[in-house]
């Protein structure tokens, strides 16, 4: 605490205006305003960055969401139901599986159980985000925004966190725009599906694989990462080949990830 000549804290006992007596007043007062403006600016920038980073995801979702809308209609869902499913679920693989089981005449329970399996991998994704979000994004907001966690938003945000701290604005920009893209393309597919027969010609269906390839290249920095990546790819396909049902519920990704990450630990400890 800065003190005046008579030893009393500045302004506190002199009876005159505290602010004017304190030589640090200018630093206390005006910069505080500027910081909040600066923070606003930062939030906006982070939000914009999140939205920008969602563009390739949205492009990739377009054909997938569209196809989901078309197929959902064919499986007996109304346009509202198909769209609401994309609003409330936001799980591409899970939604397709639901349609598949519906069309095969399966039970409601089977669909939900299959979705428990398909979505288990998010436990792993979400847990691996915790060390990054901790102390950077308030838990309540972080949890709410995790609603928008998908394979794609996970990949993009993990890549971002290698060089930037996570912020709520960035996650909101990325996850919400991706979700809006998913919802909008579903709505379009369900409403217009019958008019458009083939979107393969546009070459858009390689957008998501291309994004995965890029992010994979960006994220494999350590030698152990390369080893983990190659073993995960190999294991994932091997498990899918040996136990074909894992191709449907994506359990092969979970098992391959657990084994490959553990192998990575071993390699890392040896060097």
């Amino acid at each position: 605490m800065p003190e005046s000549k008579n030893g009393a804290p500045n302004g506190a006992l002199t009876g005159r205006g505290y602010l004017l007596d304190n030589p640090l007043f200018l630093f206390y007062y005006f910069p505080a305003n500027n910081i909040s403006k600066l923070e606003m600016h930062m939030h906006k920038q982070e939000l914009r960055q999140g939205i920008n980073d969602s563009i390739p995801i949205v492009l990739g979702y377009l054909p997938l969401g569209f196809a989901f809308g078309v197929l959902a209609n064919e499986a007996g869902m109304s346009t509202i139901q198909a769209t609401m499913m994309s609003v409330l679920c936001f799980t591409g693989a899970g939604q397709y599986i639901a349609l598949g089981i519906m069309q095969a005449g399966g039970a409601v329970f089977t669909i939900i159980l299959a979705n428990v399996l398909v979505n288990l991998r998010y436990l792993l994704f979400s847990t691996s985000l915790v060390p990054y979000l901790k102390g950077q994004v308030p838990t309540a907001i972080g949890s709410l925004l995790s609603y928008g966690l998908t394979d794609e938003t996970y990949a993009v945000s993990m890549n971002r966190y290698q060089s930037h701290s996570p912020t709520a604005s960035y996650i909101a920009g990325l996850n919400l725009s991706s979700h809006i893209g998913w919802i909008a393309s579903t709505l379009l597919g369900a409403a217009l599906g019958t008019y458009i027969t083939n979107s393969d010609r546009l070459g858009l269906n390689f957008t998501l694989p291309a994004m995965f390839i890029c992010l994979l290249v960006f994220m494999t920095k350590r030698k152990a990462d390369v080893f983990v990546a190659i073993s995960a790819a190999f294991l994932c396909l091997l498990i899918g080949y040996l136990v074909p049902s894992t191709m449907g519920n994506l359990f092969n990704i979970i098992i391959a990830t657990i084994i490959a990450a553990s192998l990575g630990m071993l390699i890392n400890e040896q060097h």
Partner: protein
Amino acid sequence: MNSTNIWIIIIGVSIVSILPRILPVALLSRYEFPAPLKRWLSFVAPAVLSGLTALSVAAPDGFIDISINNSFIWDFIPTLLVAIKTRNFLYSLLPGIVTMALLYNFIF
């Protein structure tokens, strides 16, 4: 399948797809993970991404198809090379889309 059942499916799938995403962030954020667990988790992203890449390229229609007829494998090669060389997403996106459009419209 009647409309009520479809709504039950939508709500049910919604619950089981949201919980595994939200719960870890909601419940685990208050704990400090031990260092070995953190290190293990740091390998999760490369492993998951590699698994997703492998599946999206080698099984684009949901079943494994490693053959010259799988155009995604043809796209994979230029995309990977450009990604390693340029480390830029947009540049890497282009050869894949161009190759895909060419292959689809003229060969397959």
